[in-house]
């Protein structure tokens, strides 16, 4: 198969790419990288992602890493397949690009520690650090306040239609909505409606159930 995704179950970055592949209705081979066995640090894997992180990706001869570069590649290369996740109009796409950066630079950093403390630690039988949780919930609230304002003026973060700017949030939201942090999303009506909307997309449901 031409498209191969090298990733790990539970990796939010891997799931970002899987969400995009599902929206674009693309077939691919999933190669599981077992991080407990340090498979992400082998020379072979490092040749695919020199930072030793998942995911890595190939499409024929093209090799890529960084989930958000992979999704952009998929969105542009397979523009005619599946659902649109970018916008053709350059001015509208410029706004989408802004909110793609916001997820990457503001939302994800605020959430990554919460995902670890509230999502993964309990799975490994470890206790969360309440101080870290409180500090990061405050950071997330500041971001969600901006989102609440934005989503009261715009149906989706990037504009009128669902795009990568929304899609990139799905994996982290999936984890956090299963924790007490979900109250932060639910307390904000526009954010809450947006979360419900994007999580109900058939492609996303397919990506997390197969």
């Amino acid at each position, binding site marked *: 198969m031409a498209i191969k995704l090298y990733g790990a179950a539970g990796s939010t970055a891997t799931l970002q790419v899987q969400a995009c592949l599902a929206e674009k209705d693309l077939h691919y081979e999933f190669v599981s990288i077992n991080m407990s066995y340090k498979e992400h640090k082998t020379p072979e894997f490092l040749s695919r992602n*020199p*930072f030793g992180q998942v995911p890595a990706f190939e499409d024929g001869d*093209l090799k*890529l*890493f*960084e*989930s*958000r*570069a992979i999704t*952009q*590649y998929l969105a*542009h*290369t397979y523009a005619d397949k599946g659902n649109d996740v970018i916008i053709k109009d*350059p*001015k509208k796409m*410029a*706004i989408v*690009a*802004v909110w*793609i*950066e*916001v997820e*990457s*630079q*503001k939302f994800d*950093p605020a959430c990554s520690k919460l995902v670890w403390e509230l999502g993964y630690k309990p799975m490994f039988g470890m206790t969360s650090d309440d101080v870290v949780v409180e500090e990061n919930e405050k950071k997330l609230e500041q971001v969600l306040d*901006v989102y609440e*304002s*934005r989503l009261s003026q715009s149906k989706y973060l990037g504009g009128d239609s669902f795009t990568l700017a929304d899609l990139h949030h799905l994996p982290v939201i999936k984890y956090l909505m299963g924790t007490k942090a979900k109250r932060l999303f639910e307390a904000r009506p526009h954010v809450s409606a947006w979360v419900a909307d994007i999580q109900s997309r058939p492609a996303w449901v397919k990506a997390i159930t197969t």
Partner: protein
Amino acid sequence: MATPVKVYGPPLSTAVSRVLVCLLEKDVPFQLVPVSMAKMEHKKPDYIKMQPFGQVPAFQDDDITLFESRAICRYIAEKYPNKGTMSLFGTNPLVKASMDQWLEAESQSFIPPSSVLAFQIVFAPRMKLKQDEALIKQNEAKLVKVLDVYENRLGSSQYLAGDEFTLADLSHLPNTQFLVEKTNRAELFTSRKNVSRWWSEISTRPAWKKVVEMQNA
């Protein structure tokens, strides 16, 4: 003649300077609108309308308002493909994919440790804050790992994304300038043969030299 685009923010801000160097590389006329952070102008309602996180830069071109420096750079590079440095956005889809990849690597892996180091080494003392030695050590170790990856990459590639200078290289200019010129950690870059060669090439480009002049004015 088109109205010059507007960039809001001080040239010393790493994110603002990222946008300025891009505009200069693309030969796009701009007006720099000062924003006094000391006077909290970036937190005032009129500014928040443009940048809801209250940070610099903000950007306007005709009826479009943007924020997030890398999104602004993408907009400029895409709107003016045939002006100034044409390779900036990648001259074909494969180079563009590679550029996106290294631009992501910059924002995800290079920026966090280099920003912490810049803050701890330069700004903390100036602000009379106690330096956090553990944090410095931790982030220096992270940055070393990133620079080792770059050293390897730049041994087989002239620039990060390929043979030509792109946004991926440009995006590194502000933080690296800071660490090399304003801290005693320059050797992190200069001791690595390929990184040193790359830094010397990208930092002597006329557009970046102009931005440094603006920062020192």
